């Protein structure tokens, strides 16, 4: 075995190190110097410091972009991982900033610490092609998220959500670990590329089938795809708004990326197909089943929701279904389309949660009827919410439309004959049409329904207004000029050689 060069390793993981050190510093400052201050001041200082740390990490990635692949993919740095890590850091910064006006906890330092630790977990997660590191960083991420979901100690819902999240999470982690252990047994390696080399064969080993199914289920939990979606509605509804936003945006981006890597790299050679006429066993049919279920269930159940957060949760399940198509197509183009989709989706979701947080803070909860007539009371927040919702619905010229369009085109182009995956794309388009109904219902409440007579006026905090406007501008800009992001993603994917 080659001797490990620790200074090189540290150099490579410097962005993650910066984030972790920031987390510790923020906590120390908060505990030592700010204990007696008002919560708002503590949140402002902690968020600002933490954002600075994330910005420093971004700067480190941009200024010293490392290229490395240590121990068969144990730690990887290439333009693609850089892109995803930067996206994650940007999303973390936005999450930190929307929590500035929160009042749900007095443990400010711990809250910010957990967000940053989760971010570090995600950055390791996307920078590895090794089962062990993937599992460990996934657990680091998940454990932080469980606590974040439970952070509102005064709310029973928050507890309930966190407990469900934890139980389901534990079970799916067991599934995942079981799948990983089978993979190790079959291939005698934990490196994805080596596993792929060992699994190559004409027929499917029964153990391999189990490994495929359990791995897909375990990772499917993280992206809230059916049938492992049960935690999503409760967590989206019960967790404090910044935590929910973080779970819905940043952790989704990281999980989708790692899902793609595990499937496309680790199980390369046992793909299978889902052509209507000709079904070959492999991981693609498993994902196709998950995608179909998610699209149907997410969209149809979302129609019945009366809470905006639950509605967003079911819509997230539906979106996970669409994005799974990008994974099962497993081409370079579909990866680029998937990344564009998931990043813009994360922006829109984050923005929507920021608006929800304001309304909830002042009206008690996120019932849809609390959004009646918001258009007149908080024009900027409502306008931004409209942009986010329309983007989620896939209305041109917003980013959501382009994301869907590009994703579907790349899925069709993935197989030599575009008709092969046509049924999935047609289903996705039909289900997007269904989704219009419940998305527009939200906007109808905001703009058409008059407000309830006894409701109090909404005060829009300045920071949130600026943030949601920035996010809305990003959604519009990326929709009108997708090349801004797409060029970057494309060249990164090309360079990574996935």
């Amino acid at each position, binding site marked *: 075995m080659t001797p490990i060069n620790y200074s090189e390793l540290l150099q490579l993981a410097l962005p993650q190190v910066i984030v972790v050190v920031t987390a510790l510093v923020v906590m120390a400052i908060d505990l030592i110097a700010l204990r007696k201050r008002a919560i708002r001041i503590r949140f402002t200082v902690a968020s600002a410091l933490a954002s600075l740390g994330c910005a420093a990490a971004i700067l480190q990635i941009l200024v010293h972009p490392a290229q490395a692949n240590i121990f068969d993919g144990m730690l990887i740095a290439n333009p693609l991982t850089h892109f995803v890590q930067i996206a994650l850091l940007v999303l973390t910064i936005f999450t930190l900033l929307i929590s500035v006006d929160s009042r749900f906890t007095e443990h400010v330092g711990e809250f910010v610490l957990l967000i940053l630790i989760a971010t570090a977990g995600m950055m390791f997660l996307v920078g590895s092609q090794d089962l062990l590191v993937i599992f460990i960083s996934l657990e680091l991420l998940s454990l932080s998220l469980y606590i974040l979901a439970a952070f509102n100690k005064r709310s029973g819902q928050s507890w309930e959500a966190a407990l469900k999240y934890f139980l389901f999470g534990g079970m799916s982690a067991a599934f995942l670990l079981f799948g990983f252990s089978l993979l190790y047994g079959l291939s005698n390696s934990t490196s994805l590329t080596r596993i792929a080399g060992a699994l190559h064969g004409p027929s499917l080993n029964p153990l391999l089938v189990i490994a495929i199914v359990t791995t897909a289920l375990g990772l499917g939990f993280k992206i809230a795809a059916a049938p492992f979606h049960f935690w999503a509605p409760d967590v989206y509804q019960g967790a404090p708004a910044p935590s929910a936003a973080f779970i819905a945006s940043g952790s989704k981006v990281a999980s989708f990326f790692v899902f793609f890597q595990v499937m496309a790299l680790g199980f390369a050679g046992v793909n299978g197909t889902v052509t209507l006429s000709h079904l070959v066993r492999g991981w693609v049919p498993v994902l196709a089943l998950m995608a179909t279920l998610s699209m149907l269930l997410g969209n149809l159940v979302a129609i019945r929701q009366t809470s905006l957060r639950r509605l967003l949760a079911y819509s997230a399940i539906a979106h996970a279904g669409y994005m799974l198509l990008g994974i099962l197509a497993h081409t370079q183009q579909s990866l680029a389309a998937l990344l564009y989709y998931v990043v813009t989706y994360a922006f829109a979701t984050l923005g929507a949660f920021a608006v929800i947080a304001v309304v909830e803070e002042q009206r008690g909860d996120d019932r849809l009827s609390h959004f009646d007539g918001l258009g007149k009371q908080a024009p900027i927040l409502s306008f931004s919410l409209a942009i986010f919702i329309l983007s989620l619905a896939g209305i041109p010229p917003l980013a959501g439309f382009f994301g869907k369009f590009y994703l579907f085109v790349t899925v069709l182009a993935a197989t030599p004959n575009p008709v092969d995956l046509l049924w999935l794309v047609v289903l996705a388009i039909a289900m997007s049409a269904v989704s219009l109904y419940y998305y527009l219902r939200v906007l109808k409440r905001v703009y058409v329904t008059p407000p309830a007579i006894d409701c109090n006026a909404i005060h829009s905090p300045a920071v949130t207004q600026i943030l949601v406007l920035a996010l809305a501008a990003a959604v519009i800009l990326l929709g009108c000029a997708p*090349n801004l992001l*797409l060029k970057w993603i494309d060249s990164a994917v090309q360079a990574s050689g996935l």
Partner: protein
Amino acid sequence: MTSFPIPVLSILTALPVVGAIALLALGNRNKNLVRWTALAFSLAALVLTLILWSHFDTISGALQFQERNTWVAPLGAEYHVAIDGLGLLMLLLSSIVVPIGIFASWQIQDRVPLYFSLVLLLQACLFGTFTALNFFHWFIFWELSLIPAFFLIRLWGGANRTKAATQFLVYTMVGSIGLLLSFLALFLATRTFDFADLATLAQHGQLMPAVIDKLAWRHVTPDHVAIIVFTGAFLGFAVKVPLFPFHTWLPSAYSEAPTGTTILLTGAMSKMGVYGFLRILLPIFWPQMQVVLTPLLWLAVATIIFSAYAALAQRDLKRIFAYSSINHLGYCLLAIFAVIKFTGGDAALTGEKYAAMNGAFLQMFNHGLTAATLFWFVAILEKRTGGLRSLDDFGGLRKVAPVFTGLMGIALFSSLGLPGLNGFIGEFLIFKGSFPLVPWATSLAVLGLLTTAVFTLGILQRVFYGPLNSQWISFPDLTTRERLALAPAIGLMFALGLYPQLVLAVVNNTAIQMVEHFKF
């Protein structure tokens, strides 16, 4: 090719968007200010279109005022806009119809800024659709136009507005999905979304072989694949025009919409469908259209005749004019289908094809103008009677409102195609051109003309003649302001009827080039 120093077509599309934002910023305090601002923006667009008209090079008839920029390279999406005679004609029509719609919506009292900003947004979508030459952003405008139209019907419509708006949206959406899938197939086969590139491929007979090569599927013969791809695209346009039997959304949408919106729907939006047939379906899919020419002709004839008879059975003025709209656009489609008839390169018949194509262009413009004016009269009638518009509610209005009767009479006669008025020229050219090409279909379509005359005269009879309904003794005639506003529209009807060269000069070369495109 005229090159303009500024991106004039993009500016034209952006202008109503700016107007819409300005109206929302004005707010609800001063309703008249909002109305006048909306009118000012729509008139500014009209002026800009007239400037384009005067700078248009009619000799070449080719695409002009071109702008072309790469947008999303991996998707073949370019921002490519330009206009030829057809595009210019449609721009002019939209910019005439929108001020009419705004005039006719003057009495709207509820949420005035939102209403007029939606109208201007709709206009922007129309401009975008009529200038786009790349499927990608063309489709965006095409779909986007549904949103303002939906809300205009849904929020300001009549008693059954919810159902009508939903039906309108669902029908058009389903058609659009077919359209989208077909173009995805074309894109995957050719890696381009550019209309001109696709048309060139089709002209050289390379388009469908490429698609078939890509889409080979068990049990489906190559010919069928081509027809399936064509049908998807066809569906999108057939719903929009609409063509029988995809028309059932139209009467309720037109009658439930506030009349100012109906003017936009019939005057400009219905032209999007016909325009799609001319700009997209005909150049790209003509070989497939030729294969199914006979059923297409039957559909056109059925559209013409059934809608005319349906109009005959209606009592509500708006529903009558709605069916009459279907009928008039049926003639356009008859001409379009006749043009692709295989004639073996017979020079005499080529001349007839030019006539039919010119006729279709003129008919689009004329129908837009006439239908918009007729619905405007309905709006005036509604304003005076508090929303009554059934044939049986009136009678003898001639005695109390002679000017109203005279002017609406002119519009009605234009609609039935009286020589000397604009309606005649288009229909004459269509029938002159189509008859030698497809004699049976054209002969049957004449029945539609006849029935149109019957129900149009019926309207005159029941509303304006006969004994005066005592309810309307104090029915006020047109005010000076209304007369002044109506005068340009009526004047244009006469001008076009007497001197059709006004429009023909602009579109003739485009029509000839379109026909030349098919190499048999």
